[in-house]
């Protein structure tokens, strides 16, 4: 396949991914929305619409802007196929993004290339399948596993799994972009030290932190200092 054929093939593949992804998400939304009502039919008690309205107004106030910002930030990092799967399977910041970036790093693909898109999609699909299988096995073994999983000695390990993840990834990416990392790291640390109330909303902190890192990287790139 020459370059021209490759470009054409990738464009056809990408269009197919968008068509399939959209259909998949529409089916998924309808199916997911039917779950509470199917449960209601089994229980003989449908959801209370006034209570739903009250709760969803509060939830949307927080999570609608977060969802839009997450989409704007993470979709370019993931690519098309991986975005459809990531937003469908969830656990975006704590698993899918680091997983896809790690796979691309290991496979040494460049951002914006078809190879990058393929590796990201494979990575997110493999990650989602692994999680689903582990949770399904765990659910099956819920009774015998519960004493082990809930053992107070092991609780700190599982409570800090995200800290372990970001520690490991932090080392990897700070080495690669130390000049970019200094300012966001210092500013975020100072913010969390002097305004501790923000600690419980790390999801929101990611936005200014990401913007600062992007700004620094742009300046360094412009000045050819990277």
């Amino acid at each position, binding site marked *: 396949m020459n370059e021209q054929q490759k470009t054409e*093939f990738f464009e056809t593949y990408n269009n197919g*991914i968008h068509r399939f*992804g959209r259909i998949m998400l529409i089916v998924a939304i309808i199916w997911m*929305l039917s*779950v509470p009502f199917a449960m209601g039919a*089994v*229980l003989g008690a*449908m*959801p*209370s619409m006034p209570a*739903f309205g009250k*709760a969803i107004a509060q939830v949307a106030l927080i*999570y609608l802007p977060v*969802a839009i910002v*997450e*989409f704007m930030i993470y979709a*370019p*990092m993931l690519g*098309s*196929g991986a975005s*459809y*799967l990531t*937003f*469908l*399977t969830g*656990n975006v910041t*704590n698993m899918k993004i680091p997983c*896809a970036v790690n796979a*691309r790093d290991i496979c040494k693909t460049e*951002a*914006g290339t078809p190879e990058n898109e*393929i590796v990201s999609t494979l*990575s*997110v699909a*493999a990650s989602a399948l692994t999680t689903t299988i582990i949770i399904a096995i765990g*659910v099956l073994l819920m009774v015998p596993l519960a004493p082990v*999983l809930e053992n107070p000695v*092991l609780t700190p*390990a599982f*409570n800090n799994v*995200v*800290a*372990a*993840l970001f*520690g*490991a*990834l932090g*080392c990897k990416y700070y080495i690669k972009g130390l000049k*970019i*990392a200094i300012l*966001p790291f210092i500013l*975020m*640390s100072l913010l*969390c030290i002097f305004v501790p109330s923000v600690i419980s909303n790390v999801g929101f902190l990611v936005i200014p*932190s990401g913007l*600062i890192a992007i700004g620094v*990287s742009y300046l360094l*790139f412009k000045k*050819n200092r*990277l």
Partner: protein
Amino acid sequence: MSVLQQLNSPAFYLICGSVIVFVVAMCIVFMLKSYRAGLALGMDKTKLKRAVTSSITFTLLPSISILLGVVALSGSLGVPLPWLRLSVVGALPYETNVADMASKSIGLSGLNASEMTPQAFTTIALVMTVGIIWGLFCCIFLLKSYMKKLNGAEKKSTKTKGGRNFGDVLTLAMFIGLVSAYLGSYIGQFTADKNIVPIITALVAAAVMGVFYYFTEKRKIAWLDNFSIAVSMLAGMAAAVVVSLV
């Protein structure tokens, strides 16, 4: 039959299991499509397989923590709903927070098994489902045009300076921003609550990753990279247990 027993009935497993089976099928379809496209584009089979195996090893430990989330929520919402929520679209901090908000809106004192009624449960389930659905709508309506715009911008601005193109730098910067927010919060937890466990966990994981980095990048033992994240995380988690015991 108590409400909790009803929430763990086979019918509920069937309802939630059907959605999960659909999602699994979709993951397999996407995987096959991208694998075939990769081969057609002339990508190395080993590279494609590495993408899959590294992602599986990467995901193993965080998956166990997600399973713990199912365990944590199962006490008040039964097993099937948390199983579904944490397998499709959801994430533990969101689910816990939203379930609590929904419980209060229906008049419960919080997410509490002893106060749970069938109607409270179905209302909570609906709020949890609708409250996180926005990302899916963004993908349906905006993803194609957004990616097109980005690709256009990237083609125009891609210039190599110092051996890197700006697309790579941008991805690295976004990721550094994400990591910095979390690391800052661990430092804040230490200064505000004297909770040293998260920062020690992160530091130990980082130190072990540093050792892996030395062997994979300096000594060029590339295969070790597949295990770097999982082993570093295990070391960090072990440190969390030790620090908590001391």
